């Protein structure tokens, strides 16, 4: 049993830490994508890659937002509804008028902020477990979106609004094409990474997820931290919604199932449910892996239904191997 005086032996520690940071999901993604590329070489061209990134951007963004709530020990199921609300609300507010786009986006983020805060407050002060609380807000937000629009979207999304999900810049040096969505993805995930891994706030999130009581007795504002985490998750949902609406245009069922997919992506990325562990790199890698998997199954022409099966197996094996690593490698 080795014990060294504080300070010594940290380089070795750091080495291991770095080794740990090489995220398993990253490897999985690279492998999957390589196979995709072999089956369909166009995916290896810059344009193909960019297109892949554009498609997986919304899920990656949702995952990196969901990550904050997971790290704080909770769940956010209401994401799905918020995405739908964003698309439908966007179409109602902007109503095909490019001049409305900017304040519409502002308003949508406002709504997201409110919903996120509501989630956080319900969990922190009404002490309703987040899985139930966000299930409740999921129903409420869905209902609200439907009431507002009367059941189906009532306007079009103007083109400058849709640009975030749809516009692709052509003849860009080196990479050739550059979808705006990829830009959004980069900006958002960088922000998320900075917020979770660089700032003091991120450390508080982990501490709260790990042991809220200890955090409280150490002076951390537990409720505030939690609320903030839910707000970030909600804002990511709004961002994802804006991009999905932009990519595909208005529809009602956009959001369905996205929350669970985001959680799945995080878990595949090595995020630990019930708090304390996780990284943005992992969440994003997880999202990419999922999408690469879907693309792959698509290419080999597996029926829709069996894609679910594959996803289920991947999920379980990802977590199982994670748990195993945790037990067998300090």
């Amino acid at each position: 049993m080795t014990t060294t005086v504080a300070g010594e032996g940290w380089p070795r520690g750091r080495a291991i830490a770095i080794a740990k940071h090489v995220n398993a999901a990253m490897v999985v993604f690279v492998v999957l994508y390589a196979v995709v590329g072999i089956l369909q070489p166009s995916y290896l061209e810059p344009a193909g890659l960019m297109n892949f990134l554009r498609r997986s951007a919304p899920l990656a963004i949702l995952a990196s937002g969901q990550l904050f709530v997971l790290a704080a020990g909770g769940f956010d199921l209401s994401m799905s509804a918020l995405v739908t609300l964003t698309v439908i609300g966007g179409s109602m507010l902007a109503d095909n008028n490019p001049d409305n786009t900017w304040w519409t986006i502002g308003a949508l983020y406002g709504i997201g902020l409110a919903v996120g805060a509501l989630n956080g407050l319900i969990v922190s002060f009404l002490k309703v477990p987040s899985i139930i609380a966000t299930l409740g807000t999921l129903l409420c937000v869905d209902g609200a979106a439907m009431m507002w629009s009367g059941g189906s979207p009532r306007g079009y999304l103007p083109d400058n609004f849709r640009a975030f999900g749809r516009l692709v810049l052509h003849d860009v040096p080196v990479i050739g094409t550059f979808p705006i969505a990829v830009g959004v993805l980069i900006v958002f995930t960088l922000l998320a990474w900075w917020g979770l891994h660089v700032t003091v706030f991120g450390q508080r999130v982990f501490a709260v997820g790990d042991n809220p009581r200890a955090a409280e007795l150490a002076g951390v504002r537990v409720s505030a931290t939690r609320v903030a985490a839910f707000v970030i998750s909600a804002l990511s949902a709004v961002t994802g919604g804006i991009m999905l609406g932009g990519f595909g245009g208005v529809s009602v069922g956009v959001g369905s199932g996205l929350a669970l997919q985001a959680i799945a992506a995080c878990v595949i990325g090595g995020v630990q449910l019930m708090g304390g562990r996780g990284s943005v790199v992992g969440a994003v890698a997880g999202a990419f892996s999922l999408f690469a998997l879907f693309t792959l199954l698509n290419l080999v022409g597996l029926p829709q239904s069996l894609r679910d099966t594959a996803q289920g197996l991947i999920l379980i094996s990802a977590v199982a191997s994670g748990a195993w690593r945790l037990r067998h490698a300090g």
Partner: protein
Amino acid sequence: AQNFDDPKDFAYAEELLKMKPQGPEGKPWEQNLGGKEVDTSKYKKPGPYRICFSNAGVDNPWRVVGWTDMQAQVDKDKADIKSFSAADAEGKDDKQISDINSFVSGDSCDILIVSPNTTAALTPAVEAACKKLPVVVFDRGVLTQCPVTFVNPIGGYGWGIQTANFIAEKLPKGGKVLGLRILPGVDVLETRWSAANRIFKEKGINVVGAEFTGGDNAKTKSIVEDYIRRFGKIDAIWMDAGATAVAAIEAFEDAGQPNPIITGEDQEDFLVKWQKEKLTAFAPTYPTYQWRSAIIASLKILKGEPVIGPTWKLPQPDITEATLATYVDPKMPPLHYAMCGCKDLPGYPQRWGGKP
């Protein structure tokens, strides 16, 4: 389970498509295709009436527009209607069965309208209801003859025939067709595909694939993009429902390809796009005005007037290059169904989300 590729039904649909609708001119929701009238005098009662409606759900824009039609029709006839109570089953068979039972036990209905969530599952409940009340069924059917009438348009086979024929005639020799379907297993959708597929086979048309989009725009776009990338060029898109037609077209735009020959549906966003881009397109319809017809039939029954039954086949108009102009209306919301036959109803267009 039912057979979704039944030659008899296919032939019957072809026959119906050829028929000339009878009934008031310009009011397809009151017309019928070769139906016989049934006597309803035994249901005659003094009005105003209490109408009850068990709705499968309002979980997609088609049902939303139809549901709005129905409510508007109720307003239109409010003189004859004392109360209109509706129960929404949220797409759950189990709940709809309970809903119907409590309508029946609640004796606050003079007549029961049912829009079944699924055919087989609702049959027992409807049979039970028939014993106590006159029942009107529309959209999906039930496996029993007990309802006074079953209101529905020509349906899936007709849709498949209309669309497939259009593509067959427009498609260049050896052209490639991609079929986009929403999800498997839904009777009204399966029959559309089976009929179209039958014709594609007969005419030796090259169907490069049929994919399920789950009615999701993003997914539709991705699938089409992938097919374009894989086959270089897709000449025609066949859809079993138009909700994601625009997304499919956008996939071609984003890929810098010429617009395909496409069959969509009567949603405004598709019609507007069609007009704007001068597409080679065709819009079959599964008219939402059948929701009106259900109310109309109910009132006739309660007044003892004869109605078309036991099945009332409504005409199923389609939208073509020629008739497009009359249906395009940029004032209406993107997912509004132009074949709503609702222009004469109270509250049009605001009630349907349109701008005055």
